[in-house]
């Protein structure tokens, strides 16, 4: 009996092993499906943006599948995505990436949300030589490590607010300006800071306040009191949504007058909704805006994308969703040009990507970052109590003129 049981166990394990190896070698393409994998933050502190990312991915998968799918060697394939919840935790994200690759046999990955989690996953995909197209990791350090399988459709973090400094210099008659800046101490914000340092050097501007905000801090009163005392030409703040909301709250309460205020994460923080008129004239960096004139055959224009997205998910798409959708378009394009499912062939095709999507032009630089798309700046403008983000730079897409300088608080109603 014992012998039979042992034999039985051996037999079952052999079959399981065979099945596992079988699935992992073919799971990249199952029947008519190309299987992509993604660890995504569906719970935890990044869950809202994680969901925006997932909605963007899903929207593009549906659209591409509906419009004929991906054609490889004369056969039509559809996209399918395996998702796991990484709980907004980098360690978990790295484990899940490993699981997607080793257990589920995924051979092509889509990025998670945030620079931090992308940083955790990139070494894993690199180790197994899995091409990953990511749409939500902008930290410059991702693109300086020499990763060969990482491709980002978005502009790197150091470009976020460089345009704002150029704009300030332009308004100052080409002369350098005095910059006050406050950045949170995390990878992303510090990269934005590096961009400002470069821009300051390039334009001969002077940085007169350079505060680094601890992550735990939600009070900027000291920084703002300093700003009030030294009167800079530009105030730059970056500290995710918390930083944006805290800054606007305290600038308005402390009546800090600056001619120009540039920030990140205004739309993620729903600044114009949460702070209303207090946020007026704030200048915000964004990867995308629906009014841009880029086009593609899947989503049409940005406006059309926004309309369809609104219909499907019931809210206006933030740029996190738009860039996520663009990642799928990049994959489709690469598969068709590679005309193969070989990972390295797909990777080589990704390297040669040069295309326009509704989200913007995409062409990857040597580090994997998108070099073909500029950042845009919008400004919060209000009519009565109704506030909106209007594109003001670059001039090519500007729907409104950049309002400068910001009126003093004593003159604002």
């Amino acid at each position, binding site marked *: 009996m014992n012998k039979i049981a042992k034999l039985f166990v051996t037999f079952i394990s052999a079959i399981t092993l065979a099945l596992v190896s079988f699935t992992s070698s073919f799971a990249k393409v199952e029947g008519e499906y190309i299987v992509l994998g993604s660890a995504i933050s569906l719970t935890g502190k990044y869950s809202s943006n994680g969901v925006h990312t997932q909605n963007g991915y899903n929207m593009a998968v549906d659209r591409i599948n509906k419009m004929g799918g991906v054609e490889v060697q004369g056969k039509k394939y559809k996209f399918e995505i395996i998702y796991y919840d990484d709980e907004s935790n980098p360690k978990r994200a790295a484990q899940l990436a490993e699981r997607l690759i080793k257990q589920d046999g995924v051979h092509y990955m889509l990025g998670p949300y945030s620079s931090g989690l992308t940083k955790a996953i990139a070494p894993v995909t690199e180790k197994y030589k899995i091409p990953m197209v990511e749409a939500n990791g902008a930290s410059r350090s991702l693109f300086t490590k020499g990763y060969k399988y990482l491709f980002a459709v978005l502009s790197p973090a150091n470009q976020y607010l460089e345009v704002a400094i150029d704009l300030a210099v332009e308004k100052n008659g080409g002369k350098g300006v005095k910059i006050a800046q406050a950045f949170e101490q995390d990878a992303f914000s510090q990269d934005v800071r590096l961009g400002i340092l470069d821009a300051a050097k390039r334009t001969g501007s002077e940085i*007169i*306040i350079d*505060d680094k905000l601890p992550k*735990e*801090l*939600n009070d900027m009163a000291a920084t703002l009191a300093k700003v009030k005392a030294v009167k800079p030409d530009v105030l730059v703040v970056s500290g*995710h949504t918390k930083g944006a*909301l805290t800054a606007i709250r305290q600038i308005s309460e402390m009546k800090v007058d600056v001619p120009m205020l540039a920030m990140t994460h205004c739309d993620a923080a729903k600044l114009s909704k949460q702070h209303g008129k207090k946020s007026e004239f704030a200048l915000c960096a964004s990867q995308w805006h629906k009014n841009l004139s880029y086009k593609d055959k899947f989503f049409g224009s940005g406006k059309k994308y926004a309309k369809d997205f609104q219909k499907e998910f019931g809210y206006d798409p933030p740029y996190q969703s738009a860039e996520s959708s663009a990642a799928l378009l990049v994959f489709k394009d690469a598969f068709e040009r590679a005309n193969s499912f070989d990972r390295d062939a797909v990777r080589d095709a990704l390297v040669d990507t040069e295309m326009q999507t509704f989200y913007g032009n995409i062409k990857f630089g040597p580090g994997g970052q998108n070099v073909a798309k500029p950042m845009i700046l919008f400004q919060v403008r209000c009519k009565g109590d109704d506030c909106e983000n209007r594109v003001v730079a670059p001039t090519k897409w500007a729907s409104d003129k950049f309002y400068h300088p910001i009126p003093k608080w004593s003159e604002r109603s």
Partner: protein
Amino acid sequence: MDFLIFKAPMLMVQASLDGILLGILFALIAYGMALQWGVMNIINIAQGDLVILGGYIAYTIYLWGIHPAWGVIISPIIMFFVGWALYKLVINKVVDRDLFISILATFGIAIVFQQLMNFIFGADVVVAQSEYGTTMLFDNSVTLPNSKIFSAFISVLYAIALVIYMRKSKLGRAIRATAQNARAAKILGVDTEKVYAATFGINAALCGIAGALISITLTLHPYVGLPYTVRSFMIVIVAGLGNLPAVAVSGMGLGLFEEFADYILGTEFRIGAVFLLLVLILVYRRFKLSKKREYLK
């Protein structure tokens, strides 16, 4: 640059007032912590998360169109029952055990609370608007948000009310008796179980008030509770247990110290400076105690 504060005397005034106003708010949270630490010998790691939950209650009524300042009345009432329920469910099982168990248990509660708040209220950072405006002093060179003045005022009001309640009421006397000697209080007919539950409820209510005030002065997010726990822990360590005036003074002192550290050392060393101060104070107290042949429990 870092010594800007010495060049502009108005900045000194601004920093002092900012520090004191914020310190008073922290002192309120710390008072709750000191109370239940003293009575039940529990260090509540979930203190900050109770604060944030209180804030979300105020934020919710703000979303319903009610002015968020009403949160300072509604939030503590709800939070009292939350605290009471928490005691009955978890805390009563760890109250007589050693300190480490209570830290673990409240740490667990903190995680559960964070996830629940994230689930219910979402992961977005939110603010409630009080529209209280600004007080300008010295020809507009010192500005104080009225919401911060309001917070400090309400904190002081509640703290005074609580002191009076502790002195005069029957429950207050029972709580103080239990804090002095739980066994003796029990022998003399005090229902210590009830006293513990009430103490935990009062602590949660204080957190509720502080949370409501934070919703109109700072920002809310499910995961920002820990800094409040740490800050109140520090204030209590500095002030000692069962000493309300000391808690108030140490709260304001820490607030001041933090603001000045920001100006003099730079923003990035602000929190580091506070921790350094904590270490120095602990070392000093240990030194003093060892001379007196007494030990911190």
